[in-house]
């Protein structure tokens, strides 16, 4: 940071002049939409920034599970057989194999009572522990479905993505100076100017990221609706026919009993055909039935893609592939959406960039509402209650996440979503107690304390044990986040309300 920048002399503008009435109309639409969706966009952006590290949180939350950098088909087969033996009537099982981001071998399936479990296996395929990662699951589901039932959550998140995308369009059109002022960042002085600089600078330089995550997120969220309408108008309401287009070779359902599929053999056949590839998961459907088959996913290093999926029948015969990588342009686009949305395509540098840019988008949302509130104040129509509520809601999230993580570590049986909801409500209730600035400072400090406590609790629970090294990096990152939050309080200046 430094004090006043060198005075910028006015140059001849290179951008075409946009008529003022158009800009004013766009601003009105931008404000209306932003305000209507502000809380949802904020929540989805904040949870999305955290969700970039879903794999790392999985490793951090249960760091003593075996870390494997490779696994043999025999070990995969053994793990599958052991889990299936616990419930021979399992309808399907999902096997995750080690990959750089998540070096674990796990098998997911249901038990005889219908309860779902995931078990970790060691390098020999022996089941060694049950997966217990409630916080990781909580934060991922908060981002993808807001913990709402059925498809409602996906739809609402998708609609939020549409609103965000729309805000980007109206935002660019309603801020003709956004490129002209591309490097102006003034802090202090006028509250409105300060928030506007923060809002506009992050918006313009993060624009490619903002467009990508909002478009892919909206599509992923709305896909259920799009598929439903497509099925209704083209396939007489049969959604399965739409999904079948993207599922590769079909295997007819046939419940007659046969010996269970040899998972190790199927994987070996594919590994022999693609020795350079990494296989990251297997979905085994209807094991022990004539119609049993496996969907085995292969990751191609260096590709922006979720991977190629092979369909293997009960006799370990490869029937074909879905065409995510070998098919047409549409399939290639489809295969790239999830990694592109979550930043899972370029290793840790891209994950860190996505995390920071995601927090930036969260700040853009927060500052957008702050600008509207400051504008009201400037016009002599202040909304002090909303000023307090908005600040309290924004700063409730790091605290709610911190407390939810701590409870998940200490009491894995407690539902993190209930803890998160309770803390969000309590923190938001601080709007009744203090001024916006006091709320901001106290919630930031409380968040910092909660993050340090999470790291300390995690260290206390795992010190002296054989632990995935990523867990220590996560602990250090939590402490760093706490330090930055505390430092932000120290650096807080009091902007005038002009």
């Amino acid at each position: 940071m430094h004090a006043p920048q060198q005075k910028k002399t006015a140059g001849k503008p290179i951008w075409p002049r946009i008529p003022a009435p158009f800009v004013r109309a766009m601003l009105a639409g931008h404000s209306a939409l932003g305000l209507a969706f502000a809380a949802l966009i904020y929540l989805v952006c904040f949870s999305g920034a955290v969700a970039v590290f879903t794999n790392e949180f999985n490793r951090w939350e249960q760091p003593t599970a075996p870390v494997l950098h490779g696994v043999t088909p025999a070990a995969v087969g053994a793990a599958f057989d052991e889990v299936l033996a616990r419930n021979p009537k399992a309808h399907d099982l999902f096997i995750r194999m080690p990959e750089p981001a998540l070096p674990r071998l796990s098998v997911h399936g249901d038990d005889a009572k219908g309860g779902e479990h995931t078990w970790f296996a060691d390098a020999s395929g022996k089941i060694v522990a049950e997966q217990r990662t409630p916080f990781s699951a909580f934060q991922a589901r908060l981002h993808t479905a807001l913990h709402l039932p059925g498809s409602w959550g996906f739809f609402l998140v998708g609609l939020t993505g549409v609103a965000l995308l729309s805000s980007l369009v109206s935002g660019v059109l309603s801020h003709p100076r956004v490129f002209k002022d591309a490097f102006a960042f003034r802090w202090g002085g006028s509250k409105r100017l300060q928030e506007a600089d923060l809002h506009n600078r992050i918006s313009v330089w993060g624009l490619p990221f903002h467009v990508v995550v909002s478009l892919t997120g909206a599509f992923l969220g709305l896909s259920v609706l799009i598929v439903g309408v497509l099925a209704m108008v083209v396939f007489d309401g049969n959604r399965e026919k739409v999904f079948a287009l993207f599922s590769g070779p079909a295997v007819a359902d046939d419940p007659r009993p046969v010996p269970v599929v040899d998972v190790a053999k199927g994987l070996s056949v594919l590994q022999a055909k693609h020795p350079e590839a990494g296989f990251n998961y297997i979905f085994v459907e209807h094991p022990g039935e004539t119609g049993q088959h496996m969907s085995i996913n292969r990751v191609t290093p260096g590709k922006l893609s979720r991977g190629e999926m092979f369909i293997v029948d009960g006799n370990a015969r490869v029937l074909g592939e879905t065409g995510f990588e070998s098919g047409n342009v549409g399939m290639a686009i489809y295969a790239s959406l999830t990694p592109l949305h979550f930043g899972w395509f370029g290793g840790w540098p891209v994950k860190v960039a996505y995390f920071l840019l995601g927090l930036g988008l969260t700040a853009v949302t927060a500052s957008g509402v702050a600008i509207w509130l400051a504008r009201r104040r400037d016009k002599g129509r202040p909304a002090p209650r909303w000023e307090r509520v908005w600040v309290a809601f924004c700063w409730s999230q790091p605290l709610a996440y911190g407390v939810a993580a701590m409870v998940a570590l200490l009491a894995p049986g407690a539902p993190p979503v209930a803890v998160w909801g309770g803390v969000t409500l309590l923190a938001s209730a601080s709007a009744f107690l203090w001024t916006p600035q006091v709320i901001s400072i106290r919630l930031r400090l409380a968040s910092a304390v909660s993050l340090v406590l999470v790291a300390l609790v995690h260290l206390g629970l795992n010190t002296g044990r054989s632990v995935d090294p990523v867990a220590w990096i996560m602990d250090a990152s939590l402490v760093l986040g706490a330090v930055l939050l505390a430092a932000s309080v120290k650096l807080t200046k009091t902007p005038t309300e002009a």
Partner: protein
Amino acid sequence: MIGLGGLALAPLALGGALLLRRAWIHADARRPWLIVGGWALLALAIAVSVPFLGAARGPSIVLALASTVALALVAAGIELREARRKAPRELALEPSDRRRVAWRGWLRGFLAGPLGGAAAMAVGLAVAVCFPAEVKTRLIIGGMLVPFLWAGGMAWTLSDDKILRALAVLVGVTVAGFGAVFLKGSL
């Protein structure tokens, strides 16, 4: 190491951002060259990433890293102002003042939400059903168009003061889109 290739290109992006910042600070005769040079370096980073990091993956990595680097540069140039001193007013336009009429508000919300969504869905499905390309490509492109068009329609209907015009256009697009889908009838 996965992803370190992207980091190797980050200095190019930083160089581009630095040139652009210099052009922004000094509005002298060199300014156009600095702007061209800045954008050229950013474009070069993207171009170089294609052979090294992949046609789709490379530019995606560079864009993510370049955005982060540029924002870091903006943050590094923060100008601290006196908290208690009133800053000079900036010339920023105000949103247009609309008459607050309840039915217009509800209608505007209906246009931006359900009707805009229906119109976007109609166009997306029309592309999915009628566009001359392979079925899966049509479906994905048509599907991707839905959020994009819905967002565009939302931005337009919320800002257009002629609300009945927006209503007529969206109804027309919806009828035309679904009409085309039903006329063709199958993929």
